[in-house]
């Protein structure tokens, strides 16, 4: 009996297998960290996929008689992992996203083609990232020392000299307390760039009042500094940030006590921090939208009239303005006239995209015209909501400002820069 009990508890393992499945339902890669699980287990996934209609709607956790399938959908690929026992689902989800990010980092994009083209490297990566189903090395700096990213040049050199893509020694980062940085980094130009990117998430109601608005910000860094620099980034107004998350390199203590970000940066591109300025604070809404969408009871037609204008732009120009409308199914076509930019209505996906470009406050862009509906069908109940996309350069809409960046621990003088961008995140206007 005791033996049996033991038998039951032995199957513990976090991620058992991974299947990559494309949007069309082709399974194009499988990797098992333990004994092989037949790919037929994916049938349960396919079933759920079919039921969900949209790929977004596939439940992240699917239960099958003997396994659990935890999947993510990214870049038109489903990463389906097979789990046998209790494991925090977020653990797996977060890991799968990390895998996708690593692919992106290595191959420039994470798509079916690039994965197929680099099948062997993908396999080597997966082998390094998970050992017996438990994450082993997920820091891209460590991985890059173990398995060098492919470049055409390197492939050539390797083939000629017989050297390989695989590192022969243990990455230095793996042993240190700063696993994210490799040792012996050298640059001729030492530079550190920070991009403060803020996205406005908002819901505006029919009359233009803000139902809900908040700001999601990230600071992306591109740090190319030699040696072991110790950086300190301070803000003019750190108290603006009440909810932040950091790259593991940031020292929490310093942030808590002094509100400065002190860190030894990873080499290259990374996301230093992200922050969230919640609905309680005042959020400036850069544009307003006047819209009038009507569907007529008879004649199976409708009218659409949208005008976009600047609201609180802090004196900056609004660029890359795009309005996207998910039309009701009955809308067959749109015959519109845009005073600025171009519009495109895709009758298959029922998505109307109006690409405006730069917003000119003197001459407000307007899109106007008629919609034709499927004859005979009842008029849609609800007007479609508008999704706005925009970009404002050189402005962090929350007012966040970097004060200064100091470097300790190295002698040279780095070149430093900060850029601000505001974008629309999930910016929706209800109609």
């Amino acid at each position, binding site marked *: 009996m005791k033996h049996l009990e033991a038998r039951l508890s032995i199957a513990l393992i976090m991620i058992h297998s991974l299947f990559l499945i494309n949007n069309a339902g082709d399974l194009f890669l*499988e990797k098992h960290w333990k004994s092989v699980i037949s790919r037929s287990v994916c049938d349960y996934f396919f079933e759920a996929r079919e039921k969900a209609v949209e790929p977004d709607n596939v439940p992240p956790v699917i239960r099958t008689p003997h396994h659990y399938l935890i999947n993510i959908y990214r870049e038109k690929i489903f990463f389906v992992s097979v789990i046998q026992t209790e494991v925090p689902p977020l653990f797996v989800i977060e890991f799968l996203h990390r895998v996708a990010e690593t692919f992106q980092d290595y191959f420039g994009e994470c798509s079916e083609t690039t994965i197929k083209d680099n099948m062997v490297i993908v396999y080597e990566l997966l082998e390094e990232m998970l050992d017996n189903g438990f994450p082993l090395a997920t820091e891209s700096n460590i991985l890059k020392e173990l398995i060098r990213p492919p470049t055409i040049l390197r492939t050539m050199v390797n083939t000629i000299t017989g050297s390989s893509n695989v590192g022969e020694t243990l990455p230095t980062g793996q042993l240190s307390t700063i696993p994210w940085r490799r040792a012996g980094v050298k640059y001729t130009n030492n530079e550190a760039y920070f991009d403060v990117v803020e996205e406005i998430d908002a819901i505006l109601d029919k009359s233009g009042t803000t139902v809900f608005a908040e700001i999601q910000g990230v600071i992306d860094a591109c740090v190319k500094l030699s040696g072991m620099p110790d950086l300190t980034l301070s803000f003019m107004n750190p108290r603006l940030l009440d909810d932040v*998350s950091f790259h593991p390199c940031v020292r929490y203590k310093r942030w808590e006590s002094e509100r400065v970000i002190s860190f030894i940066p990873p080499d290259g591109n990374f996301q230093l921090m992200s922050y969230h300025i919640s609905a309680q604070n005042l959020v400036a809404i850069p544009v307003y939208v006047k819209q009038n969408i009507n569907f007529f009871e008879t004649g199976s037609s409708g009218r659409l009239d949208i005008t976009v204008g600047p609201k609180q732009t802090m004196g900056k120009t609004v660029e890359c303005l795009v309005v996207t409308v998910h039309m009701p199914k009955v809308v067959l076509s749109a015959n519109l006239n845009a005073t600025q930019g171009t519009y495109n209505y895709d009758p298959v996906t029922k998505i109307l995209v109006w690409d405006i470009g730069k917003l000119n*406050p003197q001459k407000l862009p307007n899109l106007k015209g008629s919609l034709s509906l499927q004859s005979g069908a009842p008029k849609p109940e609800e007007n479609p909501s508008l999704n706005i996309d925009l970009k404002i350069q050189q402005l962090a809409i929350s007012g966040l400002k970097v004060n200064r960046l100091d470097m300790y621990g190295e002698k040279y003088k780095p070149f430093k820069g900060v850029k601000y961008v505001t974008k629309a995140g999930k910016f929706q206007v209800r109609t």
Partner: protein
Amino acid sequence: MRAPPALSASAPRNGSRDSVSALRRSASSAAAEMSASSAFSDEKGGSASEPEYGHDPASGGIFSSDYKRHDDLKEMLDSNKDSLKLEAMKRIVAMIARGKNASDLFPAVVKNVACKNIEVKKLVYVYLVRYAEEQQDLALLSISTFQRGLKDPNQLIRASALRVLSSIRVTIIVPIMMLAIKEAASDMSPYVRKTAAHAIPKLHSLDPEQKDQLIEVIEKLLADKTTLVAGSVVMAFEEVCPDRIDLIHKNYRKLCNLLIDVEEWGQVVIINMLTRYARTQFLNPNINESLLEDSGEKAFYASDDEEDEDKKAEAATLAKRKPYVMDPDHRLLLRNTKPLLQSRNAAVVMAVAQLYFHLAPKAEVGIIAKALVRLMRSHSEVQYVVLQNVATMTIKRRGMFEPYLKSFYIRSTDPTQIKILKLEVLTNLANETNISTILREFQTYIKSMDKDFVAASIQAIGRCATNIGEVRDTCLNGLVQLLSNRDELVVAESVVVIKKLLQMQPEQHSDIIKHMAKLIDNIQVPMARASILWLIGEYCEHVPKIAPDVLRKMAKSFTNEEDIVKLQIINLAAKLYLTNSKQTKLLTQYVLNLAKYDQNYDIRDRARFIRQLIVPTDKSGALNKYAKKLFLALKPAPVLESPFKDRDHFQLGSLSHLLNAKAGGYQELPDWPESAPDPSVRNVEIPEWSKCTSRKDRKEKKVEKPFYSDSEGESGPTESADSESDSGSGSESASGSEESGSGSESEDSGEESESEEEEEDEEDQKKKRKKLDKTKPKKPVVESAESEQSSGAEDRKRVRKAVKNQKSASESESESESSESDDESEEESEEESESDTDIRKKKAPVSKQPPKQSKKESKKETQEMSLLDLDDFEPSPASAPVTPVNFLSSSLVSDLEGLSLTDTILAPTTIAPSGLIKMYELLHRITGEGLGVEYCFSRQPFSPDPNMVAVQIQFTNNTNSETKNLHIEEPRLQSGMRIREFAEIEVLAAGESVTVVMGIDFCDSTQAANFQLCTHTRKFFVSIQPPVGELMTPAFLTENDFKKEQGKLMGMNEISEKLTLGGKCVNEHVIVERVTATANLSRVPCGSDKECRFAGKTVSSGCLVLVTVATKDTGGAQLTVNCEKMVIGTMLVKDILQALSQ
């Protein structure tokens, strides 16, 4: 297409003959991959790096070519050129990746396990791990290589040898594995030790008999002091011996302290393990809380619902004997995990959140809400999991997420599953105060195109209605309106929900039942039809005429109905037979006959059973007598509750919680112990610690790992447990702050980048900036006035007001001065810039006032201001409000807005004659020991703050002595409510009375404002509860405006009620008087003399309130109230009804 395989088969031969040239070519072809032309295909086929090339599925004759291809792979593997081997291995791995069987290559591959080329070796490892289990005998050939590898001086090779050795699932090598693990566990390289920890569960699953030995290794590794090992060994612990909690004791404090530096994945595992550990070792921190409230056992039971009664009682008595003190180790865990809420890894954040939810005192759990809300911005899968957990948490701790209500609002682009979860959270968060906003949100959701989501929204409305009595009628009305929706699904769902709601109070709603009975002709959705039939059957006495008719119709269509509908028809028939057998006897017989021959045996059974039960025959037994009781018993109304109720017995964040079912290997979260186990088990003998914390060791750490340097205080395990004080702020941090303080460098908005020059003269910069400040405000004047944002300074000022106390937040924009962080200098800079603008100059005399002034000064100041103020209706000059500091700014606003205010001040006085104002008692003169206090709602706008309701308070001193220092203290208010106190009354002479005015912002709710009224000797608890009618001010609308606004407030925002006018309500005049007495509304002109219209706005949020009283010739009337705030609307209807029916 047949050509390539043949060619490729020939290629390797070619390659092995003159491999060098082939290689060169292959290199170039790999480089020019894209431009592959058919001319090159023969070379490429053999050696191109593109893996799938070799086995194009389109190539015919799979079997034969497969055979051949494997042949050529073997050949390549046998060659002595590494590059060829590599090529072959790459292709083999690609085959494995695609799920193709490559097992027949095993002998050829395994030979290469000792290959010098590390990449070939790695790929061979990959292959071995995949196929060793199937070919155990052959796999043994490789073992000696690994054994050699274990001794290699290179730690990476040692580690990977161990990894592969332990991954080969061949039982025969168990002893070798055991030996290797033991050796590796004491390896000097922490990386190898980590690998050893990883190998433990592998061996355990291969041979559970080794458990005891493995536990020894785990014990040893648990004592390891490197962060690298910690995560992996805890993982091994969790898999091999999760119940050996005793192994953790000695390492508990170390794990807590190392936690922050462990890699992310390890953190998750350790936190989850420590949660369980803490549940067995510490006492429930919330036991104490309820005892502190010192309200006896009853309150204790009421407030604590986590454990079952018996245990609670025991624990209570126990805790009473020994008051609860949190174990310092418990505190240590909470403190050390808290910063991890800021991790970028969602799994870590979730792990900490569940730890706090399960372990922290109630007061501290709140901090996790913010982090969880932040996660909602992440990938949709993360959102899905987080929302599931939030849904569970909101049931237990609603208050935690209430401030984030709006973060759960739904976007039309959200995936359906996310929408439904958000809806769940919103429903859980609904309470009396926020229900109207939530219902308004729901109303927009109902119009969505996503029908599943609409159905869920309707159910959510139903749940809100059952949970919150105040809005039940409103919801019901709204749902009834949905019955005329064009979409059948919406109607059906509404029917189902209405059915449940009606069950709560059927008597009042017979008209709704009638309405639904009519719907039966149109609705086709079976569930909805069944619901209607059940409803009619259940309440057939309320609709005695319609019910038999419905049955008649149903009998006609019986054969075509769905099964659930048929069952309900039988039900209906039976119930009608029992209540109204005269009319329905034959119909019932007919239906039962039809059912008797139905295809579905359920229906046949039911028919037979019911016939026996209701139709008395000589054979039918005793049950017959009770038929009525059986069928027409009062049924309890269904409780609509969240599917997430009680899910929290699963550890949050776990798979089991997500599925609401126990997953294999789930470790139950133990209940708190009744008494704490001995805490000394976690003490560690001093010698061991002193070894680790010896100065030398520390020093080394400091030099080697600068990352530690600032968290030094915490990482020394000895200090951690009990000393909280000396944590992070070492000398380094102090200097850091100095530096950041002195820094005045800033990136000006225009610059994209700048190379910093430290030596730059700071003074110079400041000057420059001042200049900038001066020039900036002028620009906006030139620019067009319509762009709000450009009028920088003014705008900023406004923003500052909005955030008032968070001065720092708004300090941003272009004021570069703000690098000085302390408040005073901020204030200074503010003033500097203020004086620049013209508008500011006007205000200067007032706003120049430094906020940190002495009390005396401030009083004087406000006295002056009250002259400017327009509230000269205030009866006593003594009542000039004492100002809290922030009062200054807002009264300025009202100063500026004075002009617009005058209109509203003049107007209402004409409507609400003071004679009608009702006085309420605040303090009876007996309980007040001679001090009598009355109050009334003066219906004047409260000029210092237009969002407040003015309350006029009259103090009467009935004693023979003076009462001094009358003032208000300690207001206890609902969230959002504000109070503006009246000025302290210094002396109230005997027998005199005085009147003052105070302002209360009730937030448009009828919640009472509680505060203490203090004299120089006593304090009295008093509360002011406003009638709903006092929460509004008159609004002036024209008839057209009124109609337009009314049109906007239809649906759930409209409540109408029939009434019979009271005897005295003879004419229009009385009605107007009554209504305006009840509510502070103004009359709207109206063309028809049958109708009286009134309009007002709520004081706090300015929502329109429209009231219409339409009289009928018969003496009845129809009262209609349109208001966005449904609670207000509902309550107002009640009040006016009462006033009019008297």
